[in-house]
């Protein structure tokens, strides 16, 4: 526990961790503020092409003048001789936390996953860089214990960071919705679902960080650990996971399992867009990869010379 305590303190004292959180919060506040300010209520209208009369679909009343920003495509329909009515209008762009938070969590989650790769890899990469791992091993020579403590510290640290960022996202969107948006559908089920989703994202980010950390422990360079996972993203888009034989690589790549935990689009027609695995399948695949990479890197670390 003392080793884990020291590793956790080291993790959270790192400038890159604090900077990442600060940048994430600033970006969230900026994006939500802009979205809130620019958000507009949507309108649906119906125009009678024969008479040119415009009716508000929601209220059923005839509209004499359209609100600012709503444009009636007069040139396309007025006097065109096309019988019947044409609907037009604009969609609602106001912040709607109840409706949009799930999708925002998915998008932010993928971004956080890649940040987790960088933070996990650099946690030990920086130690190789300055040589501080040598000093640590002179204090605690049990390398498996050091390896385990570092991996757990990375997992806990990244999970806490991810949950904090997602909490800021949810809070910012809720405030934006209350100030100038829509607050609808926020009930116990919503909170429970989003909490579950946030935990899945945090779990995926933690696992991703542990994988990147373990790879860097062997490669000894942060760039190697990060690159391995960034390259998978390219690989996943180049190789169709359902086309064998090469598809098996894409199908069972670690990133595929991590993405399945964050992005759940089982109905998408695009095989590259949707998660290939179910959430449970993604969790199993991720767990297998974490165990394999953690044990292999630990065995290597136990036998290697540390400088």
């Amino acid at each position, binding site marked *: 526990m003392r080793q884990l305590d020291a590793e956790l303190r080291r993790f959270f004292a790192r400038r890159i961790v604090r900077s990442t959180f600060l940048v994430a919060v600033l970006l969230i506040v900026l994006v939500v503020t802009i979205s809130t300010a620019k958000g507009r209520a949507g309108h649906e209208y119906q125009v009678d092409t024969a008479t040119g009369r415009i009716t508000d679909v929601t209220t059923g009343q005839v509209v004499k003048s359209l609100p600012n920003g709503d444009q009636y495509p007069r040139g396309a329909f007025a006097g065109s001789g096309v019988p019947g009515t044409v609907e037009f209008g604009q969609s609602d762009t106001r912040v709607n936390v109840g409706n949009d938070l799930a999708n925002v969590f998915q998008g932010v989650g993928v971004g956080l996953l890649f940040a987790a790769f960088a933070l996990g890899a650099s946690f030990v990469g920086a130690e190789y860089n300055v040589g501080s791992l040598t000093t640590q*091993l002179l204090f605690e020579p*049990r390398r498996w214990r050091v390896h385990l403590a570092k991996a757990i510290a990375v997992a806990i640290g990244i999970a806490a960071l991810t949950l904090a960022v997602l909490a800021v996202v949810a809070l910012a969107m809720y405030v934006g919705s209350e100030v100038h948006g829509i607050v609808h559908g926020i009930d116990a089920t919503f909170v429970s679902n989003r909490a579950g989703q946030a935990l899945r994202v945090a779990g995926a980010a933690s696992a991703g960080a542990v994988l990147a950390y373990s790879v860097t422990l062997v490669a000894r360079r942060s760039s190697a650990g990060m690159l391995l996972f960034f390259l998978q993203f390219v690989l996943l888009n180049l190789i169709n996971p359902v086309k064998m034989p090469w598809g098996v690589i894409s199908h069972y790549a670690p990133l595929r399992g991590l993405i399945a935990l964050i992005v759940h689009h089982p109905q998408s027609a695009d095989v590259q867009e949707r998660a290939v695995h179910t959430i449970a399948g993604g969790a199993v695949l991720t767990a297998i990869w974490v165990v394999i990479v953690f044990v292999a890197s630990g065995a290597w670390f136990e036998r290697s010379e540390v400088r």
Partner: protein
Amino acid sequence: MAAAIEFEDVRVTYRSRRGRIPALAGLDLSIPEGGVFGLLGANGAGKTTAIRAAVGLLRGAAGRVRVLGHDIPRNITAAMDGVGALVEQPSFFPNFSGRRNLELLGRTRGFGSARVDEVLDRVGLGVRADARFATYSLGMKQRLGIAAALMKDPQLLVLDEPANGLDPPGILEVRNLMRSFAVEGRTVLVSSHILAEVEHACDRVAIVARGRCIASGRVSDLLQGGHAQFRVRASDARASDVLRAAGWTVAADGDDSFLVEVDPTRSHDVTSALADAGIYLSELSPVARSLEDVFLELTEEQP
């Protein structure tokens, strides 16, 4: 005398593009408990590799390494409980303060901030303890490394080139620190290329060359060992020729003196030989050898 560290036929080979390079080629060395022991050797002789093998940073060395009675690396945990070490350059997180770095290290062993303050004061770093490590001078970094080595209050202190970057007062402080450890009955192993410093600080030394120990023993024994030089002053110019003819190695020293190599226990033979030739000398004095002379003499003899 029990051994603090024992190396028995230790072999370490590194692979490089040029092939396999032996760093330790059958190192046999026993470092006794108590006192300050110096490890001398040229760059690449194997000093740091031997130290790395002893503190468990290097794994896979052939042969046997025992530290404080424990086999390395099998019983590394038990051994390192009593070992404080500074290996190569002091390595800490550059953006953390000296104090923060020591606190994080200390936490792994359950040391509190009082112990951290204690060792910082002992190495004279208390005033700058809260500055970032990256802003430290080379000497201050070295002091922090020594402070980290002292944290465990070790029975065996291993210092690899501790005088690096230190100013003369700093070197003196490190020497006093090592001596104070020795006085307490603990063991200090120090590797250094500053031979004069080793000569002043160490009770015993070992000279390592090409991965093997070529000499080991008390400093005083090494300085007195082998053939010593004596300065001979005589009024008769034939004196050097007489001694050379008798088989001694003679070298010029000054206008009216010369140096002769002779076993210290047989220096009276010089007097006798000259007297037999009717020459009476006015001076026969031993020329003090330094550790540097011994080191160069021994290492130059190596193939």
